[in-house]
């Protein structure tokens, strides 16, 4: 029998692959084969995953030979201008600190009303006339894309191009070349946008970074463009997938969906955290490479070994989460790993929380009769993409 290749196939569209869950519940840590023949260690338990993601002796630099990259398309991240995601310290923190102030909890809160208005606009267009639509094309993508464009100050008119290029960077059937070409095209686009804005910087992320960092020499044009590229791509695809998959989950749990109509901000926040934990859309694990020998809670890893933190299995570890494999927003989960852990923990998480809270809230209030328009078996889930979600979500209301 040939050994199944990580991340293995799902059985239930809402659960991690059973094989991965089974590995978590065994006492030993295993090596697993991945797409390119490498055999990294797979860490599936919560405590172990936190060590892998938090210990500085694990590198995130995909340019290192032997790094257990997740796919051929992911390898393209190492071929164009490097982003925060593949930098190690001290470089990583130095670059991240240049942009931190844009992503604080307070700054994210200040976007709440505007985000609600974007969602309302999409729902207005949906209810105008028809009684059916596609929650991905009509709501999830436009909300996530319009918002990130506004945040950065890139033209919303180019939304379709950003969506297509992001898709090409993340579709697992692509090659390093096709993904690299998409990445290069977006990097070039953003470099010329920065060059243009240097003359007249606007009151947006790109404009503010030009004034505070590019003009002072702290950041060059290419680094700012790479940062904008990361924010644009990491910032909309993930959120859009959480909007569609989260709403599908809520529609299958009508009492929890209805509870969002009560205007209880605590319940809304807990529901978002629980959906993030339960769905953990970063489905191929977060990869690292040991640059020194590390002892991971008693399991020895040697310098040069590749490792994977299977955050989807770790997020259902019964040793940490009372709800375990169940979806239960009343269990008040804290500290899930859906945004990662350690120095690379999601920079946009406070914004993502506000986007998800406002989208679920507005939809629960304005579309109380929302239903999925096709049987579950007919839905196309994104097993073919780096980040899990739905290709379409046909609905009626």
């Amino acid at each position, binding site marked *: 029998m040939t050994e199944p290749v990580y991340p293995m196939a799902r059985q239930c569209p809402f659960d991690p692959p059973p094989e991965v869950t089974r590995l978590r519940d065994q006492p030993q840590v295993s090596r697993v084969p991945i797409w390119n023949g490498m055999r990294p260690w797979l860490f599936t338990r919560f405590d172990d995953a936190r060590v892998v993601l938090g210990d500085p002796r694990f590198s995130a630099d995909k340019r290192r030979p032997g790094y257990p990259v997740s796919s051929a398309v992911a390898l393209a991240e190492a071929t164009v201008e490097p982003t925060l995601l593949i930098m190690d310290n001290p470089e990583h*923190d130095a670059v*991240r600190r240049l942009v931190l102030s844009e992503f*604080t*909890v*307070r700054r994210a809160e200040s976007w709440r009303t505007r985000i609600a208005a974007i969602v309302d606009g999409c729902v207005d267009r949906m209810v105008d006339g028809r009684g059916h639509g596609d929650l991905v094309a009509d709501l999830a993508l436009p909300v996530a894309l319009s918002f990130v464009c506004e945040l950065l100050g890139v033209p919303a008119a180019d939304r379709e191009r950003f969506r297509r290029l992001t898709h090409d960077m993340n579709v697992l059937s692509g090659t390093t070349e096709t993904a690299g070409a998409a990445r290069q095209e977006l990097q070039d686009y953003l470099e010329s946008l920065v060059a243009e804005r240097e003359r007249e910087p606007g009151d947006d992320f790109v404009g503010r970074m030009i004034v505070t960092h590019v003009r002072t020499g702290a950041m060059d044009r290419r680094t700012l463009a790479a940062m904008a590229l990361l924010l644009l791509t990491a910032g909309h695809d993930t959120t859009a997938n959480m909007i569609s998959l989260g709403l599908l989950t809520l529609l299958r749990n009508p009492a929890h969906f209805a509870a969002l109509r009560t205007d209880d901000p605590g319940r809304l926040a807990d529901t978002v955290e629980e959906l993030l934990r339960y769905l953990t859309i970063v489905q191929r694990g977060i990869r690292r490479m040991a640059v020194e020998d590390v002892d991971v809670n008693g399991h020895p890893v040697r310098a040069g070994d590749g490792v994977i933190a299977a955050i989807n299995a770790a997020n259902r570890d019964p040793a940490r989460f009372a709800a375990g494999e169940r979806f239960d927003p009343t269990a008040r989960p*804290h500290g899930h790993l859906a*945004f990662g852990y350690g120095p690379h*923990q999601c*920079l946009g998480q406070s914004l993502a929380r506000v986007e998800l809270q406002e989208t679920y809230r507005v939809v629960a209030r304005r579309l109380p009769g929302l239903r999925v328009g096709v049987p579950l078996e007919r839905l196309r889930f994104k097993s073919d993409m780096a980040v899990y979600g739905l290709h379409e979500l046909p609905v009626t209301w």
Partner: protein
Amino acid sequence: MKIDLDPTRCVGAGQCVLTAPEVFDQGDPDGVVVLRDPDPADELTEDVLAAADLCPVGAILVADGGDDR
């Protein structure tokens, strides 16, 4: 309860502000963690310990009040 912050490690993920907003803040202009309340009331102890656990880079260290560590 004694709170020790290491702002040089902070990556601004905001877990602390989300968990114990009475005690932690993200300062101006750089967005790095600052202590709003160096000696929080007892009822906040649980939140402060949770924040220390959740901080992804271990920038928050908490020592119990009683013994001087």
